[in-house]
C-alpha cells in the first residue's frame, strides 16, 4: 500500500483513538461524580479544557528538559500507537505493526515515564520529585508480572507479533487467551490496575496527598500535550490488552466496547478501594500477580 495513504489512515486512527480517550475520561469522571451524588462535568468538558490549555497566553519554562518532558511522554504514547494493530484483518488500521512489535511496545511503555521523570525533575517542585520516585519504583514492579505474562503468551503462541497473537485467538470466545492461558491473563490484568493508576495505585498523582505529583509545574500547552497523551495512552493500553488477551477486535465498534470494559475494570476497582502506600503497592505486585506470572510461565515451558 502507498505510504501516503497508509499515513492518512494512521492519522485517522489516531484521531478516533484520541477522541474516544477524551470521551472515556469524561465518562470516568461522570461515574465518579454519580458515585458521589453529583451530576459532574458535561461530556464535552475534556475538549474545552484542551482548547483552553492550548490557548493560554503565558507559558513559562524551567529549562530544556522541561520542554522535552511532555515531548518524550507524547512520543512514548504515539510510539505505542504507531506499532499497535488496531483492527484485526484490516490492512488500513494495522498501523506499522511488524514481526517484533510486542517487544517494542513493552519498551515504549517505559520510555514516556523516563522522559516525564527528567522533565518534571527540572520543574524543581518537591512534590514532583516524590511523585517521580513513586512512579518509577511502582512501574518497575508492575513490569515484572506484566513481562512474565507477555513472555508466557509469546511461548504459548511461538510469536512476538501482536497480529499473529490476535490471529491465533480467532474462531470463538474459547480461543481467547483469557481461557487458554488464564494465569497470564490474571497476572496482566492485575498489573494493568497499576499501569492505569486508578485508586489503589494512584500514588503518582495522589490527589489530596501530593497534589498532583509530577505535573505540578506543568501548565498551558505543556499540560495540554500531557492530557492529549493521557487520552491516547489510556485507549491504546486497553487495546494492547484487548489484542493480547481478549481476542482483538474485528471492527471499531468491537474495539470501543472491549477497550471500554478493560479500562473501566481499573476504574471500578478504584471506586471501591482506597489508596495504598508506596511500599504496600510494591509488595502487592510482587506477591499474587508475580505468582500468577510464574505459574503461567511454568505451564507453557
Amino acid at each position, binding site marked *: 500500500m502507498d505510504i501516503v495513504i497508509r499515513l492518512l489512515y494512521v492519522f485517522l486512527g489516531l484521531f478516533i483513538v484520541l477522541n474516544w480517550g477524551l470521551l472515556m475520561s469524561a465518562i470516568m469522571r461522570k461515574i465518579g461524580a454519580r458515585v458521589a451524588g453529583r451530576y459532574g462535568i458535561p461530556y464535552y468538558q475534556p475538549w474545552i479544557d484542551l482548547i483552553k490549555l492550548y*490557548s493560554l497566553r503565558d507559558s513559562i519554562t524551567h529549562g530544556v528538559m522541561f520542554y522535552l518532558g511532555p515531548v518524550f511522554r507524547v512520543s512514548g504514547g504515539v510510539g505505542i500507537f504507531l506499532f499497535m494493530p488496531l483492527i484485526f484483518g484490516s490492512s488500513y488500521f494495522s498501523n506499522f505493526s511488524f514481526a517484533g512489535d510486542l517487544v517494542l511496545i513493552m519498551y515504549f511503555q517505559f520510555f514516556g515515564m523516563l522522559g516525564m521523570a527528567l522533565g518534571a525533575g527540572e520543574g524543581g517542585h518537591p512534590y514532583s520529585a516524590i511523585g517521580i520516585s513513586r512512579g518509577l519504583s511502582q512501574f518497575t514492579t508492575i513490569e515484572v508480572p506484566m513481562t512474565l505474562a507477555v513472555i508466557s503468551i509469546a511461548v504459548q503462541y511461538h510469536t512476538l507479533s501482536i497480529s499473529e497473537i490476535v490471529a491465533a485467538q480467532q474462531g470463538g470466545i474459547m480461543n481467547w487467551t483469557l481461557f487458554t492461558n488464564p494465569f497470564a491473563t490474571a497476572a496482566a490484568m492485575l498489573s494493568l490496575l497499576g499501569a492505569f493508576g486508578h485508586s489503589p495505585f494512584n500514588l503518582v498523582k495522589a490527589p489530596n496527598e501530593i497534589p498532583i505529583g509530577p505535573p505540578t509545574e506543568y501548565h498551558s500547552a505543556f499540560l495540554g500535550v500531557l492530557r492529549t497523551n493521557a487520552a491516547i495512552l489510556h485507549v491504546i493500553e486497553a487495546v494492547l490488552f484487548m489484542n493480547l488477551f481478549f481476542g482483538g477486535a474485528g471492527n471499531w465498534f468491537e474495539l470501543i466496547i472491549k477497550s471500554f470494559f478493560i479500562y473501566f475494570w481499573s476504574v471500578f476497582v478504584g471506586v471501591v478501594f482506597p489508596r495504598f502506600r508506596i511500599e504496600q503497592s510494591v509488595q502487592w505486585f510482587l506477591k499474587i500477580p508475580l505468582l500468577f506470572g510464574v505459574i503461567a510461565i511454568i505451564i507453557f515451558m
Partner: protein
Amino acid sequence: MINENNNSENLNKFLHKENEIRNVETPDGSIIQVDPLNDYFCTDRPEVKEPKNKVIEKFLNWARAESLWVLGFGTGCGSIEIPPLVTPRFDAYRFGVQMRPTPRQSNVFIISGYLAVKTLKRVIRTYEQMQGPKYVLALGSCTINGGMYWDSYNTINRLDHYIPVDVYVAGCMPRPEALLAGFNKLKERIKDGRAEGANEYAEKFDWYKSNQKKIVKDWNMPDYNW
C-alpha cells in the same frame, strides 16, 4: 529591582536563610557562588499580551469561560463556602468550574474574604505564578472596602489596589448561590473580552508594586515571582 531604596534595606533585614548568597560545592569539586534571589527567579517584567485576531479570540474566550480552573487557596472565612460549591448540593462542576491544586494550572483566584497582610504576601506570589489570562473573583464586603475589618491593624481594605479584580461578590458571607452567580458574571465578562486582568497588571505594574510594598513591610522575596 523596581524600588531600590525600599528593597535593599528590607532584604537584608528580613532575608530567609535559604535565600542568602552562599558558596556551594559542585559535584566536580569546584566552588560556585549562589544568589538564590537572582539565580532561581525570573527577573523579567510581565508583558502585555494583546489579543490578536478578533474571531479566533472570541472562540478562545468562549473556551476559557467554559473551563474555569479555580485555585484551591482560601484566604479568609469565605473559603468555607467553597466545599459546598463543589459537593452535591451546588455541584459547580456542571458549569465547567473545576478545582486545581497548583497555581500554575489554575486561571481563577478566589479571594475569599478578609485579606491579612501576611496572606497578601502569599496572594501576590501565587497570583504572579498563575498563567494568563487569569481572573480574580473577590468574595465578601471585606475585599470591597474592608467590611467589618475596616479599621483593623492587620488587614487590607481594597483588594483592587493590590491585584486586578474581575468580579466582586458582595455579602458577609455570600452564599454558594451568590458565588455561582459571580461565576456566571465572570463568564459573561470573559466572553465579552473584558476580563483582561493579567494585561492590566502588566500595564500598571509599578503602581501595583508600590501599593503592595506599602503594605508588606517585610518584603523579603524577589520582586517578580513567575
